[in-house]
């Protein structure tokens, strides 16, 4: 079924907070048209929304590549941001480096990466300081 897969690309701008969430909303509406299970749609939209917020807050923007295949939705979020020095620390709940102005908007509670992992069936993060970060998430739909 590989050639039947649906590929989508989104660019998340780093300078406009108000646009974070557009990719997850768009992907959600496409998944509904495809009649994918509500539980999977929920997991994808929550995980991707968190990812978009991270790209906007921490990475000055980035790219999202999505592949919808017969049995999963795979999302790859990549950026050329500052990178993460200690990934296991970043993955712990409540740990945050978000600046105050971001927290005042209700973001930056230190749940972004933990939630992305929680709502994914498969999760991988690769990061290098000064180079950037790539997060891969997959949610099963079958």
């Amino acid at each position, binding site marked *: 079924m590989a050639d039947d897969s649906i590929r989508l690309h989104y660019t998340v701008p780093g300078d406009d907070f108000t646009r974070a*969430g557009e990719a997850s909303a768009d992907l959600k509406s496409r998944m509904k*048209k495809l*009649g994918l299970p509500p539980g999977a749609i929920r997991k994808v*939209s929550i995980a991707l929304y968190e990812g978009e917020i991270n790209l906007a807050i921490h990475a000055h923007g980035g790219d999202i590549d999505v592949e919808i295949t017969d049995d999963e939705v795979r999302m790859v979020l990549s950026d050329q941001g500052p990178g993460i020095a200690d990934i296991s620390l970043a993955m712990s709940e409540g740990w945050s480096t978000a600046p105050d102005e971001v927290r005042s908007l209700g973001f930056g509670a230190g749940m972004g990466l933990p939630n992305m992992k929680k709502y994914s069936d498969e999760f991988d993060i690769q990061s290098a300081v000064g180079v950037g970060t790539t997060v891969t998430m997959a949610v099963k739909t079958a």
Partner: protein
Amino acid sequence: MQEPSVHSVTLNRELCKGCINCIKRCPTEAIRVRDGKAIIISERCVDCGECIRICPHHAKRAVSDPMDVLNNYKYKIALPPPSLYVQFNNLDEPDVVLAGLLRLGFDSVFEVSRAAELVSEATRRFLQTSDLLRPVISSACPAVTRLICVRFPQLMDHILPLIAPIELAARLAKDEAVKKTGLPREDIGCIFLTPCPAKVSAIRAPIGSKQSEVDAAVAVKDVYPLLLSAMKKVGQVEYLAQSGRIGLGWGESGGEAAGLMTTESYLAADGVENVIRVLSDLEDEKYHDLDFVELNACSGGCVGGVLQVENPYIAKAKMKHLRRTMPVSRNHLTDDAAALVEWDDEVVYNPVMELGETRAERFARYAKMEEILETLPGLDCGSCGAPTCQSMAEDVVRGFSSVNDCTVLMRRRMEAVLRALGKDE
């Protein structure tokens, strides 16, 4: 779940000019223009009434019952909603409205606000005991519940499984009347004075119950002039009103949620576009700390219903005045009523927005849809009869439309032909 005949919202083909106002406004993309006239896709329509509001030619209307429906019953009960009272000026108490209804030929009145106070209490109990997913979403606005059933499958498990106050009012009123008159049930008519088409449809195709005890629905705008003159003839006013602040509050946005009293952790949104934004954010679990969400498809809540007479914001100001000296609540839930208020029928997701029956069909159509969308101009002009290029592309893969309906592409082709013939300019 729905057949064409259950809808209250209908089109008068004579008056329809085939403009694109309604197709653009519809929250479920349920309207298309075909051969110069609008058509409503029945299984998508949630009877919110937005198309009635927007149509400049009054071609869309809500079908409700005429006043002479009263003649069908030996004993006639009026079910006035709280929003009815605030359609009138200079009102200090609801009693004169109720007395006016009796003068119009009703044998008794049962205020919907009485039942609303019972539903408030049942909801309060429900929130304390149930493990339904939070936040619990109100099911009182039938247009919102149907919208969730069509567009928000993930939220089905959040819907409050209690019948609406109007339905409970009818059940209680009919039981009471049977006892009082000894008449058979079918001779007793419960007639609702409806602010909106969604509630008319909810009588024909009930939500959460197999059958409605409401027998007919007369539009507020139809009863209003008759009721106004009847009210002027009312002499000594009896104390007929039997509900309090909570019951009346249900007539406006925020009233149902505020009537819970036991939680401050709630949200109330009104107006169909705002409702959609909230539902969409609820899907993404952005408000997981909330206990309760009240949503009304009409701006202002039921006072904003498309069959009302008064400006909804003036109505809200009058509501404040009317409620000022009322007791908090005057109706309390008995065990009998508590049993009546629970849903006895399933409410299910209605996947009409999906692209096909099987997954293979949906994926194939999706790919085709994307191909078509590439070729369309992306102006969302509505000239083809679909609200957006996206919905046009979906219609084409569903076999419901043809790319040739795109007038912009057609014009480009014409221009190319003219150029080829050397007649350009």
